[in-house]
């Protein structure tokens, strides 16, 4: 059985006097341990889709099943990583990472221990007491990862996590993210990544779901069977990129 099952998910927003359809009949499965990337042009509703999976945004119709069961409200087995990092400026790095643990009602000692472990894991050892405004963009997103990983979710949801970073920082962080994902002591194995960067999707994911806009719908679901670590300069990589690019272009 798939870990996540999306069945005919649709989403309408109230728009002026009428409604605007953002997502139309989205169905796909995510297996345990799978790394899925959702690629599409801006406005195709891919970020909304991620929030529907998490349960933050209610869907208009359809179903999201987790381990075969429908989740009421927020699915606490998921954790989100944001493009804007979404760190609270008034909390230290440690307090930001502890946020999810605090919401789960963990005692202080346990929170501190776990926050320490994951701050260490993303390479921010020594920055526990720093405030977000004192950190660079790349470091902020490391805090974002640590915060999501600290709740030890079964599914990691990433909303354009590298898009607000400069190109070089993004490359480093992508590699480190992959390393963390592939390391044996990592509890989270299943990742859903939303991005508009085609190369990023093909480099990272086992499967790429291509979306088109107006309303947002799936146009292609393709497996990426390149061996890791993946080299962006190979011909097969470029062929895949071209394929996805033309899929998006002809519908966009």
């Amino acid at each position, binding site marked *: 059985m798939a870990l996540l099952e999306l069945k005919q998910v649709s989403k309408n927003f109230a728009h002026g006097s009428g409604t605007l359809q953002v997502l139309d009949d989205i169905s796909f499965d995510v297996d345990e341990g799978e790394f899925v990337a959702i690629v599409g042009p801006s406005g195709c509703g891919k970020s909304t889709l991620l929030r529907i999976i998490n349960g*933050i945004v209610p869907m208009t119709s359809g179903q999201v099943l987790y381990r075969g069961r429908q989740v009421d409200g927020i699915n*606490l087995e998921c954790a989100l990583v944001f493009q804007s990092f979404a760190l609270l*400026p008034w909390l230290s790095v440690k307090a930001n990472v502890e946020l999810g643990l*605090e919401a789960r*009602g963990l005692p202080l000692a346990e929170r501190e221990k776990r926050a320490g472990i994951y701050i260490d894991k993303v390479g921010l050892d020594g920055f526990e007491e720093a405030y977000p405004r004192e950190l660079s963009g790349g470091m902020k997103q490391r805090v974002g990862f640590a915060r999501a990983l600290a*709740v030890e979710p079964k599914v990691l949801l990433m909303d354009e996590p590298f898009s607000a970073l400069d190109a070089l920082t993004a490359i480093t962080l992508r590699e480190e993210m992959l390393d963390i994902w592939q390391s044996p002591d990592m509890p989270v194995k299943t990742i859903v990544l939303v991005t508009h960067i085609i190369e990023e999707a093909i480099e990272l994911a086992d499967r790429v779901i291509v979306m088109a806009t107006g309303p947002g719908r799936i146009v292609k679901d393709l497996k990426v069977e390149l061996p890791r670590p993946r080299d962006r300069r190979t011909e097969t990589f470029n062929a895949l990129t071209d394929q996805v690019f033309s899929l998006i272009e002809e519908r966009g």
Partner: protein
Amino acid sequence: MFGIEINQRRLVNGSLSFVALAAIMALFFAYRSHAQHLIPHNVPVSLEHLPYYAFCSFYRMLAAYIIALLFSIIYGMTAARGGLYERILIPAIDIAQSVPVVGFFPAAVYFFVALAHGSRFGVEMAAVFLIFTSQAWNMALGVYEAVKTIPDDSRDALESFGARGWLRFKRLLLPASVPKLVYNSILSWVAGWYFLIACEIITVGPASYWLPGLGSFLWQAGEKGRNFDLVAGLLTLLAIIVAMDLIVWQPLSMWAERFRYEFAASSGAAQSLGMFSALAGIGPAVTRALRAILLPPMALIATALNAMPRGPQLSAEQSRRAGRIVRTLVVGAVLIFIAWALARGFFALIRTLSQPWPSEVKEIPPAILASTIRMTIAYAISLAWTVPCALAASESPRFNRILSPIAEIVGSMPATALFPVIVVAVVRFGGVNLASIVLILTWMQWYLLFNLLAGANQVPEDLKEAARAFGLSRYARWRKLTLPAVTPSLITGSITGWGGGWNALILSEYFVYKNQTYQVLGIGSLLDAATYKTGNGVMILLSLLSMILVVLLLNRLMWRPLYNLTTERYRLDY
């Protein structure tokens, strides 16, 4: 219940605040018990009792502020929930803010004195209530705006962790409101002093209740011709305001910066008056020293407390359910109370208005006209000197650097404190009309000047350079650039100026000085005379209602459209 843990930092902060509060309270009560038998009713004021009066005023302010703070957080956050809450609560603020607060003081005194079965405590409650209404609205609006502008991603981040209720309030909503709360608290204290002094003057003047405070001290000193006491009272007030700025607002403003989202760094930064910036470090330095002393013993206590066994913790679901029940109960109780109060008020209104109307009713329209003329004269005088000042400031940075801090300091002094001085001067040299206009002026001109200076400072340097480079004459520069650029600020200043002006009007159109009543034709004097002399409920109500009507109509038909027009047309986003 909410998983409270004890750590040393929190203990230090807690005990520091507690010690500070206890010290101020102890000082007050010690002084009070010492002074109580010294100050019987209506004994002539004297210098040795000045601290007592100052304490009374300060505590009245503090009580009102604490209530206003709690109220504004609840009100603002409820309004920010959106939907029906927002559609009702936000327009309500708009109306409440434009209603002249001082006009309600007589009604409030009667209501609260009746509530307190005639005891003096009723007058205290009325004064606190009045100051509260002058402080709460802008703070509530600040909280509302702050919560509304929290980025969606921050909300989603907490939501995705299932963080709700108390945790969401503690970690997201309250911290996000801190910068605006601090900034608006500073403004609220300025307004609060103004109204407090007004209330205290009214009580010793026409209302002849006993409300000891700096306002009544100043008034009595003026009446008794004790010029030295008058000056001492004014200096005491100035000292309290400066001290508040140094020990409270400057450190708070600095601390509030930590709660700001980075992208919002430039807009509406919290700032204290910035007086005597050389002394600005004192407050934080003292706090740091106290912290250093308190930290070791508190660390021991924290360890001891944390070692103690805890009670059972509620699960997330249980506490969520409890929160929902509490919220439903509170909202229900508040709604029932409001409905009850509205119904009572409505029936009282009908009952009062169904009594025979006195013949003075026909004085209301000419009185309103006379009052409006007085306001217009004061407004014209204010414009006559503030606009040239703003133009000069935009031309000369040096003039601006001198004028701005002076305007800030003088503007933060409650102009009502000068009323006794004005009366002393005016009764000797002129009429009540003059006193009234001068008092309105003391409020209006500063608000105009502040806003105009702020507007003039916002004119971009490169636009000024461009105007010079094209060889525009000074007159042409003013007409083409500076005046249009400051117009939105002029309107904003005018709205605030007129809003406060009505209060000054009520205070100044009717006063009792040396047992003699001074009054002029005006809506404020009609209201005061009806309240303090004839006690005619119909007249009180009709004058109050017609004044509110005029204020609201002026706002809706003149200021609001002007504001929309000018901000649309003269906005500086080029």
